[in-house]
């Protein structure tokens, strides 16, 4: 299960910008000063699920885990986004 820690780790790895919404905290990913994607972090317990992350990041749950735990680099993630025509 993806957690708040995963979301925070991904945000750090991708150098995301935090954005406080009225109901959630978000991280925004910019490339060449353009917003590429944004994903929400639940403010409650760190153990709460973040199953929405793969959808918002346009990758699979495993890739999300890999992005959080290291195997998938920022460059590789950008490569995936480019292949999916998000960049």
């Amino acid at each position, binding site marked *: 299960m993806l957690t708040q820690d995963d979301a925070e780790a991904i945000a750090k790895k991708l150098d995301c910008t935090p954005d406080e*919404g*009225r109901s*959630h905290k978000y991280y925004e990913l910019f490339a060449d000063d353009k917003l590429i994607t944004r994903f929400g972090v639940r403010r409650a317990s760190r153990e709460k699920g*973040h*199953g929405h992350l793969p*959808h918002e990041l346009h990758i699979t749950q495993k890739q999300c885990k890999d992005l959080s735990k290291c195997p998938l680099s920022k460059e590789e993630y950008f490569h995936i986004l480019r292949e999916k025509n998000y*960049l």
Partner: protein
Amino acid sequence: MKGTEALPETVEWGGVTARRDLFREFLTPTHMNPPHQAFSQYDLSAWEPNSFSIVEMVQNLLSAGGAAVVVQQSASIEEHLRAVFGYTTRLDQLCKQVAGIDSKLEQVLKNLAELSALRRSFSVPIESLEPEPYEILRPFTAVVMEGEGEFEASVFDLSIFASGETEEEAIANLKGTLIDTVDRLNELPDARLGKGPLRQKNLLNKYIRRVEKG
């Protein structure tokens, strides 16, 4: 005394000729103890006992009427034996069928278990964002799916996703994310939006509009 000679094809007994294959079925050392005089010289132990009831019946016939009666009855007994073998064959077929059904049932149960493990999902129409000052221009539907210890709500076409511990929480979070996303995308000029967010902004503005109150 047990005989040692192999049983010949036919045995003369009581003035009639009895076929070996029939006696082989009926007469056993166990059920003719001691074996009848006529067979005392033969090795009956090599014969395999068949149906107890048939042996018993033959014994009764022997006691009542001698070998002649046995021979007279042989035709019908043969029929009985064939019927028994027929039933055995049928029983084998039924056993195979039951085994087949058992295997299929096992597969069905396995499929059911897999189905129940699959994520449940249902649709929730989004018709209002009250009490937030937004109106829905076109009603749309969110899909809520049971995930790994949580519920995930999504409006796939609008690229809005959220999670919650319950279905209600997931929908509430989805509405919150929807509003936050509309606000944030409208805050940013189009020139600062990538392909995905720009498409999302244009689409969201067709579905949701902020209402100025007062």
